[in-house]
């Protein structure tokens, strides 16, 4: 059944129905509505698996609580925004190194610094280029509709446990605050066996969730193991190519709400007879490199539509090794369909 729902509420619902066991969060605009909705669902007490809801004293506390919950093998989540994500970077690095799974919803706002609370996509470089010290590559998902946000929450839990890694759901103030139609009932996530989790020895082997390896050979071996896992994770790369032909005049590249708006621009250009298409990474990390190379090679021109100074274009250029035009929207402005189409006209 189709229904109209606010992004934040949809995310909260998807999380709880997908088997969320613990939520730890600290209020920050524009993500707070997710926490508020979750607190209602927790208070209603309809979901027996939802054990803990706790408002932490800072994002530093949040991320370490997620780390603790992940280390003990529980499905946990938080929602935050750029300034909070900065504070969480330390904990994400520890969790990545010691393989504790959890999901962080990063609702992008205007940055850097305190910036503003309008939508931007300015955390792209931050989450893609080592989210924390020492080389950290979490899985990053980038939904572009409310329905997809729900699906990605569900998928985020699955991936976090399948690969024992932190997962970031990168979204923005606009998607989280918009009312949109959805038609999806999240199934309950069947959590894989967590025999590695630190829940007490219980007359068996010790469980050690650790990131300290004082001897270089040990640390080297652990890093190589994590890199090997990265290669496995490459296989889940997913993307969508909207109206992509064998030959294209212009290929737009965008994520999140920029992608949704760019789709409209593609349709307008198609009406004018222009062969336009849109490449949209669904998983931002790992990025679908093969798909990107395939579709970009068919286009005369590549335009990256972003709500930042061109952070995604930087990633794209590194892969396609040719000029990528950037259409940047800064400070909380959202892409305009006509302006996007104008980059070709």
């Amino acid at each position: 059944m189709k229904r109209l729902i606010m992004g934040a509420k949809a995310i909260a619902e998807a999380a709880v129905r997908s088997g969320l066991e613990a939520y730890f969060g600290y209020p920050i605009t524009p993500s707070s509505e997710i926490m508020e909705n979750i607190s209602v669902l927790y208070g209603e007490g309809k979901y027996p698996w939802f054990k803990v809801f706790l408002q932490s004293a800072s994002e530093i506390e949040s991320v370490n609580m997620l780390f603790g919950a992940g280390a003990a093998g529980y499905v946990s989540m938080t929602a935050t925004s750029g300034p909070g994500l900065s504070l969480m970077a330390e904990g994400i690095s520890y969790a990545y190194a010691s393989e504790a799974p959890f999901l962080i919803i990063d609702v992008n706002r205007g940055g850097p610094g305190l910036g503003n609370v309008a939508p931007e996509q300015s955390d792209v470089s931050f989450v893609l280029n080592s989210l924390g010290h020492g080389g950290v590559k979490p899985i990053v998902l980038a939904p572009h509709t409310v329905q997809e946000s729900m699906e990605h929450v569900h998928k985020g839990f699955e991936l976090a446990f399948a690969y024992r890694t932190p997962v970031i759901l990168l979204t923005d103030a606009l998607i989280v605050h918009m009312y949109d139609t959805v038609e999806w009932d999240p199934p309950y996530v069947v959590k894989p066996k967590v025999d590695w989790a630190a829940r007490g020895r219980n007359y068996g082997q010790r469980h050690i969730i650790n990131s300290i390896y004082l001897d270089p050979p040990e640390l080297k071996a652990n890093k190589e193991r994590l890199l090997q896992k990265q290669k496995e994770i490459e296989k889940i790369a997913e993307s969508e190519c909207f109206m992509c032909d064998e030959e294209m005049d212009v290929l737009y590249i965008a994520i999140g709400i920029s992608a949704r708006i760019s789709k409209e621009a593609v349709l307008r250009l198609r009406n004018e007879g222009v062969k336009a298409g849109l490449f949209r990474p669904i998983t931002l990390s790992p990025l679908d490199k093969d798909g990107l190379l395939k579709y970009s090679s068919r286009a005369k021109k590549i335009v990256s539509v972003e709500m930042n100074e061109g952070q995604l274009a930087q990633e794209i250029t590194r892969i396609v090794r040719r000029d990528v035009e950037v259409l940047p929207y800064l400070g909380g402005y959202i892409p305009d369909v006509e302006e996007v189409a104008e980059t070709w006209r």
Partner: protein
Amino acid sequence: MEVKQFSSIFENGVTTYCPGCEHGLLLKFIGMALDELGITEKAIMVGSVGCSTLAYKFLNVDYVQAPHGRAPAVMSAIKLLEKDKVVFAIQGDGDALSIGIAELMHAANRGIPLTIFMYNNMVFGMTGGQMAPTTPEGMKTTTTPFGRDVKQMGPPIDACKVLSAFPQISYLKRVVITPKPIYTKDRVMYSSKEAMDSYKAVLNAFKTQLMGGFSFVEFIGTCNVNWKMTILDSKKYVHDVGVKVYPPGLCRDVYGVDKK
């Protein structure tokens, strides 16, 4: 005294702490207490950062290594999700009172049943003897080569005073773990009172958690290597100066475990 088997201490039983350090003693007491209470199999230790990090090598229990100062947050989540388990941490004074004071205070304020053992050696030990929030006035460290200036840095932070402010703490105690040197005519002997007191505090802290309360025990100990003293001088320093700055005593005992 009867010799006990420590199933929660590794068989080789030897720690890699510096000679003269009481960290090993604390670990031994924790192991003994876990065994005595029969909770080794359901214990989860959360590691902090500092010399206390090495504890995971010597206690045969489940282990999660938290970032510097964040152990109370990690512990809180584990305890809330695994209510029937025993969750404890060993933190240093730098870890608990410098970088991690916010996490410690909020965990204490929530009163989640956790046990924190703080080994206070009045310096940052692992990083090479820099000033800690607990460094006494005038003490020379590698970052206060002319002694701690309390006008600039403030007086040393007293964990028991800070934590007394939180009503939901059930057990709050400070003990001296350093054996007191006793000078006889021809040699120096060490008192065993400190060891007995420390063991009792460890035991009672765990008992408090089992009864559903938050427990925090501060152990005043030495770091002779970073204090640049002989082992004997460092032990003497604790009993001459240390106990004046940090007088041992029971600050709170809601369940009355100390009296029993």
